């Protein structure tokens, strides 16, 4: 979707501001929002692409007015509501009002280390050979899906070179909608700075994205 989350190359005022000796969390509520989000993926049975879409799919003024963990909180609220694990009147009341929906799994303290160590690898067996090879010239398609995508706006329509073939990976555009993993070949595609930003770009700059095959056409 075209959202405020897609920030690459957007003109922005002000510098990057690193914080010396930054703590991992800046408030207790950030700790809780972070941990709740990780823990709820198991009973919620949603995937990371659904969670990313739940965070980014909001009006720009909403996305930009929230801090990072406020966006996580809003995404989690949306997912528990859409999953019918929680009802709007419960959110309003701040306490349970209805019986819990049965869930298949719940994260226990004993399972945390194993769950984190396993992670969620996305590489899958390929059903067909890769269409592109290292060195091929490709154009990022000019697509504007209303749903989740991982092709940033700043590369769309531009020509780059296949730098690496990364294997066949879960396709987020499909996985985010619940339509299944639909694994697709994934490539590192590298663009010259002036291809993306025109004359006046840093002559020594190259930028890459990792792009699934459906995002690309031969150039």
């Amino acid at each position, binding site marked *: 979707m075209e959202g405020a989350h897609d*920030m*690459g190359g*957007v003109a*922005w005022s002000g510098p*990057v*501001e*690193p914080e010396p000796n930054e703590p*991992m969390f*800046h*408030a*207790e*509520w950030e700790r*809780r929002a*972070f*941990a*709740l989000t*990780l*823990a709820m993926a198991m*009973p919620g049975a949603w995937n990371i692409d659904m969670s990313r879409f739940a965070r980014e799919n909001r009006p*720009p*003024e909403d996305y*930009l007015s929230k*801090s990072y963990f406020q966006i996580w*909180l809003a995404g*989690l*609220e949306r997912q528990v509501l859409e999953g019918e694990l*929680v009802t709007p009147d*419960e959110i309003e009341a*701040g*306490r*349970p009002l209805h019986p*819990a929906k049965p869930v298949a799994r*719940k*994260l*226990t*303290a004993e399972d*945390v*280390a194993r769950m*984190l*160590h*396993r*992670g*969620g*690898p*996305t590489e899958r067996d390929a059903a067909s050979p890769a269409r592109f090879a290292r060195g091929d010239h490709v154009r990022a398609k000019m697509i504007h899906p209303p749903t989740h995508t*991982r092709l*940033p706006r*700043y590369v769309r329509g531009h020509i780059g070179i296949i730098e690496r073939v*990364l294997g066949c990976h879960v396709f*987020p555009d499909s996985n985010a909608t619940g339509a299944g993993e639909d694994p697709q070949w*994934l490539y590192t595609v590298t663009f010259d700075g002036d291809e*993306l*930003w025109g004359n006046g770009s*840093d002559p020594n700059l*190259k*930028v*890459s*994205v*990792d*792009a699934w095959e459906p995002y690309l056409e031969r150039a």
Partner: protein
Amino acid sequence: MTDHDHDHHHHHDHDHSELSETELRVRALETILTEKGYVDPAALDVLIETYESKVGPRNGARVVARAWADPAYRARLIKDATPAIAELGYAGRQGEHIIALENTPALHNMVVCTLCSCYPWPVLGLPPVWYKSAPYRSKAVKDPRGVLRDFGFELPAGTDIRVWDSTAEIRYLVLPMRPAGTEGWSEERLADLVTRDSMIGTGLPKQPHEVA
């Protein structure tokens, strides 16, 4: 949406009442999810403890120090970083597929996630606020030298700069150049030179005189 021209007041300007409302919302949600039996409060504590005190850039520093000290390890890391990093026990969530990027005198690598906040958790921990911020996510792919200036250093003119936008589930770890004057140092001493920012590409390792 195609227009980003409006003012961006954001992220750091929330007044107290807004924060309090956020605190209340989190507390309410935690109460509901716990009392309905979806969440084990002890699991939340273990998750927080893990990322607050066990996983962090010290892990990545050990990887870099080993690569500096052991040419065979360095070769394995460059060839296929995921198993090489797993040799040191670091693996899993948000680091399922890792690629190491070697800095050289001619090439400087920098990592960003313009779409959200993708970051190699097993080796660097959770990302700092600046990494997730609009200024970094917008500027890194267009004016990386300007970003480096924000961090207080100037990349020599003529050095190639390569920005990696983490748009898939591949995570990137920069292997910075080993500082001069560290010949014969142990891995442990070398790890003290490796900063978090040097492994993102927004900083350099410390120099020998900066550590005791």
